[in-house]
């Protein structure tokens, strides 16, 4: 039995140390090598998982007086999400190029964030979940704070305030759970087995606290107002990981929450209603944006809403559909932000109204952007299609015909975005002169994201075989 997760975490930790020591020259090499190495571990674990030669549960004693151990479990869900975070972070690291400014610091923070993502998606107790959650938040805060665009002051403050509020609620909820479970415990599987013993009103308040905490991170209407600034003022590699991976912290937490407490069964309709409102709100908000990054932010919020709808359906297809959606959304939004970052690099602006005729010279970025739009509307052969299919079957079986309502939001936005993009970026009437030339590293990053979007759209069974759908 190989303890894949410990090895992965240690690999990343060594890479961070190596990055700090040798990073002046070899930051890119070290970071990319480390991520690729962990990606190899993960692909091994996918094959080993089906044959059963994998340590599913890895545990080391940590704080024995509270019964806390470094306890990780490797489930299909965690394998999917970890693979997604690895590929997204890889694209973010590659995007910067070898000669980029501040690569050493950004890469160290990105790797730290990756470490927290791996730990969070695999943690088997709420204590570790909370620790990795906060490590992720703090590293993202420093990415925005130190390397963001000119108006990062407001963005990083908003991000910090919302995140701290979320962390506080999460810690409150964890303490409540610890207090009310028969033998105070942080272990997720133990709590799941014994949560029916928690009084129903306490369950409701725990659910509320955790729901708000996770909804802030996803983000879902009405807890999203940190999102537009944070996405638009972060550096491109930062936006990629915030939208691609950090928002999945919230989504994954929501998934854990729904299967943690039995009270979720009675509250799921309300949650579904919030999800639907969120989808339509963000669809209309996206139409009003002129800044491409903000538009991409609202697009990602639509998909967060759909993920929430899938989770709220509380059935098998909804659950795995939303997990697959997290995966698909990670890739498509990464592609979108990378394409936007490259467009900005090429033309010095992110405004849709100015970017008319961008396709004339920055072909790679423009076509990648179009592909990202297709991917986020769930075109067949992209990963989003499989996910939406599963989610909507799930929601329809849970909520009847109301389950199909969010689809209208996607179609609405899809139609708008095709129109907007074809009028401005893909327009052949105008010509735009370049400020910079998109380099190899940026093209490589786009290639990674495109490959991931298409690969997991064409071969969904790689993951779905693990859960035997």
């Amino acid at each position, binding site marked *: 039995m190989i303890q894949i997760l410990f090895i992965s975490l240690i690999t990343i930790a060594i890479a961070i140390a190596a990055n700090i020591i040798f990073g002046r020259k070899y930051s890119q090499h070290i970071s990319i090598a480390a991520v690729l190495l962990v990606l190899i571990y993960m692909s091994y674990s996918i094959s080993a998982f089906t044959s059963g030669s994998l340590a599913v549960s890895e545990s080391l004693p940590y704080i024995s007086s509270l019964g806390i151990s470094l306890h990780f479990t490797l489930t299909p869900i965690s394998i999917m999400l970890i693979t997604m975070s690895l590929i997204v972070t890889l694209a973010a690291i590659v995007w910067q190029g070898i000669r980029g400014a501040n690569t050493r610091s950004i890469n160290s923070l990105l790797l730290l964030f990756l470490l927290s993502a791996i730990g969070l998606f695999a943690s088997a107790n709420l204590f570790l979940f909370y620790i990795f959650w906060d490590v992720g938040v703090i590293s993202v805060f420093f990415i925005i704070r130190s390397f963001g665009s000119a108006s990062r*002051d407001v963005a990083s403050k908003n991000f*910090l305030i919302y995140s701290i509020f979320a*962390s*506080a609620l999460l810690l409150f909820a964890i*303490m409540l759970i610890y207090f009310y479970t028969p033998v105070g415990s942080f272990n997720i599987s133990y709590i799941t087995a014994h949560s029916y013993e928690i009084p129903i009103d306490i369950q409701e308040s725990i659910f509320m606290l955790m729901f708000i905490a996770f909804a802030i991170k996803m983000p879902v209407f009405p807890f999203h107002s940190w999102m537009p600034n944070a996405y638009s003022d972060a550096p491109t590699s930062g936006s990629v990981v915030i939208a691609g991976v950090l928002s999945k912290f919230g989504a994954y937490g929501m998934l854990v929450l729904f299967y943690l407490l039995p009270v979720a069964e009675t509250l799921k309709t309300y949650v579904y209603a919030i999800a639907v409102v969120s989808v339509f709100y963000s669809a209309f908000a996206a139409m009003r944006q002129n800044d491409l990054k903000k538009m991409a932010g609202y697009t990602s919020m639509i998909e967060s809403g759909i993920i929430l709808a899938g989770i709220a359906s509380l059935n098998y297809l909804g659950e795995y559909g939303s997990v697959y959606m997290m995966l698909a959304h990670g890739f498509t939004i990464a592609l979108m932000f990378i394409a936007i970052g490259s467009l900005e690099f090429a033309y010095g602006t992110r405004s849709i109204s100015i970017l008319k005729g961008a396709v004339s010279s920055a072909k790679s970025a423009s076509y990648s952007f179009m592909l990202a739009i297709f991917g986020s509307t769930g075109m067949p052969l992209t990963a989003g299609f499989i996910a939406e299919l599963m989610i909507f079957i799930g929601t329809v079986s849970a909520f009847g015909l109301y389950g199909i309502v969010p689809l209208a939001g996607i179609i609405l936005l899809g139609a708008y975005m095709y129109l907007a993009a074809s009028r401005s970026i893909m327009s052949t009437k105008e010509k735009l002169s370049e400020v910079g030339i998109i380099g190899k590293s940026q093209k490589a990053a786009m290639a990674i994201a495109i490959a991931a979007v298409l690969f997991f759209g064409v071969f969904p069974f790689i993951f779905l075989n693990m859960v035997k759908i």
Partner: protein
Amino acid sequence: MASIEYFGYALFALLALLALAAMAAPFHRRKKVSFVLGAVILAAITLTASYLFASGSSFYLLNIFRIYPFSMLFVGVFSILLLLVMALSYDAPGSFDSFFMLFGFAALGIVMVPMASSLIGLLLSLELASIPTVFMIAINGKKFIESSVKLLIMSGIAISILVFGMALAFPYDAQLSLVQIGSASGPIEGSYLALLALVLFIGGLSIEAALFPFNLWVPDVYEGAPANMSAMLSGINKKVALVAMMEISFAMFAVYSSTYVTIFMVLSIFTMFFGNLAAMVQKSVKRLLAYSSISQAGYILVGFAAASQYGLEASIFQMITHSFMIIGAFAVIMFLENQGIKTIDEYRGMSSRNRYLSIALSLLLLSMAGVPPLMGFDGKFLLFTSAIKSDLLALAFIAILNSFLSIYYYGKVIIAMYQPKKEERIVAPKAIIAVISIALFVIIIFGMYPQPIISIAAKAASALLGI
């Protein structure tokens, strides 16, 4: 005589040596000699104490000192902290020779507080710990006199309240030893005097530990004193008072626990809120840290209020944690203050002045705010769970709330440091870098793997409670 007792005597020989070295310092006037001598002796004390701690033995020495894991843990920790403060003070403006003389005696008192086995011993060592500190502030120059006089007055008041408490405790404890008052089954009936004595003890020690109603001297003194002395006051002297409070309440007045749990709870809540709310409006970073260290004492009291093995364990853990954090933070501040950088506004663009210092200060502040995986988080987490285990859910929630309130002002400093503003580079002296690095190392390593500190804290706590 068992061979382990020789180590006890060796400890006292080392303390006597420290006093001798301290007295000799103003005569030979060799900075380096005093420093090396002091460092070697303190290191030897740490080693002896850790050996005695590991042996787990418990015995009385000369009838006035008690060697047991609780006292040995704090002797070891305090001597490491004293070493850090000494390294910080090496380049301080005042003369190091006279500093070292006073420092030696203060160290003697500080190390003797956890070992004292009688109220007289406790009082004398507390006084020995606090009086030299006053002059250690004053020798740095005229502008520090105000701060030192304030400290002198406050410690005078504290000592007199303690003496009054001792007088009231006398009828119940004629030897003035720290043994338990009342029978094991319950408190003495109609024992208002005993309760009054307890309250006076807690009140007197609260002045030195800067708990809520008695904390108004703290910001002035910390801000007026040189930063190395602020580090000593908040990193060591405050913990000394808390140690004395632990001994008096959990050893001597153990059967009155239902009474003082309420007292500690109220003190804790007010101290946390006062410290955090007042810190939010500060402009000077040093003053901000003074208020933050008030609120940290409030968190430590959460463990006292839990009044259980877990609670004391968590409190001891947090006391060790906070000492390292605050000494590291004051080390950064000391250096910046010498460069004329004092207010949060002046901290803008720190990351371009000196990247290492700004990373270090950010990590130390994040640890104080309780962000994982740093040691401050582990301490707070242990404290909150201990409160929950003792059914103090409301207290735990208030503490969590405060912990998140505090991120506001710590974040303010961090955000200011990373403001995009180009400043010229400054280089810190090696002694300060060394102290900061040690503090940082402890905070990060034991933050990620807290079990060693937790188990020694647990051993000390169970020794104190006599379990």
